[in-house]
């Protein structure tokens, strides 16, 4: 079998085996199948990666022809280039780690096998997504991960709230997907092909090109798709609700991989976007806005997982902004570092939840640093990485994004400030969460305190790996300034250089770059400091000042009314339309007219005609003679 197809097929086998007979196998075997197959996929990916790094030539595999009619040919083709390599490594690597973590986390769950089946299914679709060579294969993976997400969010389906969250995720994703499909149609009409290489090449040609409006339209439509999948404004409302799923799911799907699919799409079609400055501007501002709003919404959350969810929204906003600035490789780098530290945060939160038997409210936590020191350390490392404190990974990637916000061709002060504010808020809410969870007086209920324990080996080993990643991954992509000063290489950017040219930066002095770097770090430290003053261990009762009053906290606390709008306006409107207008109005009326009224009309006509049947012989005799007279008259007329 072709190597690329093998990478995707391995988790698929896991899905099939565990899905069909998993409930009858012992848990150990289920776990083994579920974790070994992704690990094998990871090894295969590494092999392909090394091959690619050696030769520099992308690998294409056409499996079969999906549709071939005059005028339309779509192949089921897989493609492995540098972008795909990075994504695959993240997906299989972090994916395998989270699978291992899940063994410990879900061990006492009734549907152990079903969980791993779904998780493997997700991995399969995600790999199809990143390995696809054209928009259709990508869409197969795109919708497939949406399905896996739906199944996993609503995993504990006995709870109606959880299934509602799954439904919401799927439907909101579908809104994005519709935009994606329309964008694909438009691409097909403009380019004549859905293949990525063809699309990028078409737009790179200096020759006959469609007008700016068309290119922007394509860019915006595909952006809508990306917004849906990556939970960007205004299609972000599903991600906080998606925290209803098991925590490893939140880590894998809603932090590290699925939600980054939108960023991957933007990077894949960089040729298209680079030709449309308007679309790029929209992308950049959507990303910036999301980064800012996501960060503000995280500040007001008491649920630990929801803090991380909004944080994810915000961070992906930064990635999207990077793509909008033309710095696609920087966006991808942040994707990689984010995968490590966000997964680390989620899994660390999972360890806390595991210890507290499912309690997610930070108001019922506190002083856990002493009871869960190991969890605390790994969580802290990941948190520092998120805040962008050097030398942790987040610093390198986030700082590069901020630098591009300032220096890139369509960068601006506004974008930079938005990113900076988001970073400051990130540090603030992240350490608010850290302090509320791990420091201060213990607010944990009596009955839970006794059972607080560190996570088992399967979980803790993964936490260690992710913490190390959060610490070290950054060094493969040091910023330009460091490259020039310290004469180190940036292997990450060099690797991606053949496919993702670096953003056309005007030449700014290194001093500016270093200055902005310093400002960013200072802002992050300031955020941590403010969190310390309000929520730190010295504060008597850190929540005593909650809830804040005032207009801004109210608006932010309500999520800027996106949910209220969608639920109150759109959903209510559709319900009203469905029930009152159609079901009771139009449908009932139509049925009445066509069925009841037409039957009544026939019945009425029948009563009219039965009046001829008087039962009176004389009347009949008269009819006979009348008919005779008419016949004779007609005969006389036509004789």
């Amino acid at each position, binding site marked *: 079998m072709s190597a690329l197809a093998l990478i995707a097929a391995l988790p698929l086998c896991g899905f099939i085996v565990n899905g069909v007979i998993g409930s009858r196998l012992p848990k150990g075997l289920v776990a083994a199948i579920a974790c070994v197959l992704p690990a094998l996929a990871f090894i295969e990916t590494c092999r392909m990666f090394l091959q690619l790094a050696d030769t520099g030539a992308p690998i294409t595999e056409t499996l079969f022809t999906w549709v071939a009619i005059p005028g339309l040919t779509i192949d089921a083709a897989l493609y492995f280039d540098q972008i795909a390599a990075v994504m695959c490594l993240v997906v299989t690597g972090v994916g395998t780690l989270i699978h291992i973590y899940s063994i410990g986390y879900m061990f006492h769950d009734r549907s152990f096998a079903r969980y791993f089946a779904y998780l493997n299914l997700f991995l399969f679709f995600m790999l199809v997504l990143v390995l696809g060579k054209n928009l259709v294969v990508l869409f197969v993976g795109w919708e497939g991960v949406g399905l896996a997400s739906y199944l996993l969010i609503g995993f504990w389906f006995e709870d109606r709230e959880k299934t509602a969250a799954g439904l919401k995720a799927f439907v909101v994703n579908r809104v994005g997907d519709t935009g994606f499909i329309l964008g694909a149609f438009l691409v097909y009409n403009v380019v004549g092909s859905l293949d990525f290489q063809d699309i990028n090449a078409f737009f790179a040609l200096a020759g006959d090109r469609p007008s700016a409006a068309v290119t922007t339209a394509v860019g915006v439509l595909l952006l809508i798709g990306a917004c849906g999948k990556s939970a960007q404004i205004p299609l972000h409302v599903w991600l906080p609700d998606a925290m209803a799923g098991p925590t490893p799911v939140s880590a894998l799907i809603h932090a590290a991989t699925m939600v980054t699919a939108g960023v991957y799409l933007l990077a894949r079609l960089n040729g298209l976007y680079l030709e449309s400055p308007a679309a790029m501007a929209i992308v950049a501002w959507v990303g910036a806005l999301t980064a800012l709003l996501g960060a503000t919404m995280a500040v007001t959350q008491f649920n630990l997982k929801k803090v991380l969810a909004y944080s994810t929204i915000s961070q992906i906003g930064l990635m999207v902004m990077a793509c909008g600035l033309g710095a696609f490789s920087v966006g991808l780098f942040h994707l990689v570092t984010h995968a490590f530290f966000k997964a680390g945060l989620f899994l660390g939160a999972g360890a806390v939840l595991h210890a507290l038997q499912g309690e997610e409210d930070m108001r019922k936590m506190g002083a856990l640093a002493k009871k869960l020191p190991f969890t605390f350390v790994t969580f802290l490392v990941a948190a520092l990485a998120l805040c962008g404190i050097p030398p942790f990974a987040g610093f390198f990637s986030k700082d590069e994004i901020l630098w591009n916000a300032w220096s890139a061709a369509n960068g601006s002060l506004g974008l930079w400030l938005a990113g900076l504010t988001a970073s400051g808020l990130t540090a603030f809410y992240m350490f608010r969460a850290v302090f509320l969870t791990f420091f201060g007086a213990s607010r944990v209920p009596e009955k839970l305190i006794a059972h607080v324990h560190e996570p088992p080996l399967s979980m803790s080993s993964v936490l260690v790996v992710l913490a190390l990643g959060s610490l070290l991954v950054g060094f493969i992509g040091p910023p330009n300034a460091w490259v020039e000063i310290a004469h180190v290489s940036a292997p990450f950017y060099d690797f991606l250089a053949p496919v993702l040219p670096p953003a056309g930066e005007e030449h700014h002095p290194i001093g500016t770059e270093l200055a902005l770097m310093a400002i960013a770090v200072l802002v992050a430290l300031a955020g941590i400091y403010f969190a310390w003053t309000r929520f730190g261990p010295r504060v008597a009762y850190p929540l005593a000042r909650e809830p804040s009053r005032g207009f801004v906290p109210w608006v932010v606390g309500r999520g800027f009314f996106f949910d209220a709008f969608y639920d109150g306006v759109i959903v209510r409107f559709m319900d009203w339309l469905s029930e009152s207008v159609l079901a009771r109005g139009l449908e009932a009326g139509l049925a009445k007219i066509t069925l009841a009224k037409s039957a009544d009309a026939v019945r009425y006509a029948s009563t009219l005609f*039965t009046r001829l049947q008087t*039962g*009176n012989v*004389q009347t009949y005799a008269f009819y006979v003679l009348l008919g005779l007279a008419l016949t004779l008259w007609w005969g006389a007329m036509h004789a």
Partner: protein
Amino acid sequence: MRRRKVDKYQFLIGLAVATFAAGLLGVVIRRNLLVVVMCLEIMLNAVVLAFVTFAARAQTLDGVAMTFFVYVAASCEVALAMAIVVLLVKRRGSLDLAAGDELKG
């Protein structure tokens, strides 16, 4: 004799038509069964008158010969009609035709 507007044949045909119409009207309108039968006879007589008039006008005997056929048929018909009337009256107890509307739709 001065020329009349209507010569005798036209008058007789007119008379026959009027008689026929009267009979027809009676058949359709009158409620008494016996009167209806009598009106049938009136219609038949009017037809005979028309036949004889045309025969006289054409100076043939064919129409006159029809008289016999018609009267024979009428007599048989009356005989049967009376039998039906008797049975009908026995069944219903009245000669009213309008009362018998069991077949009303």
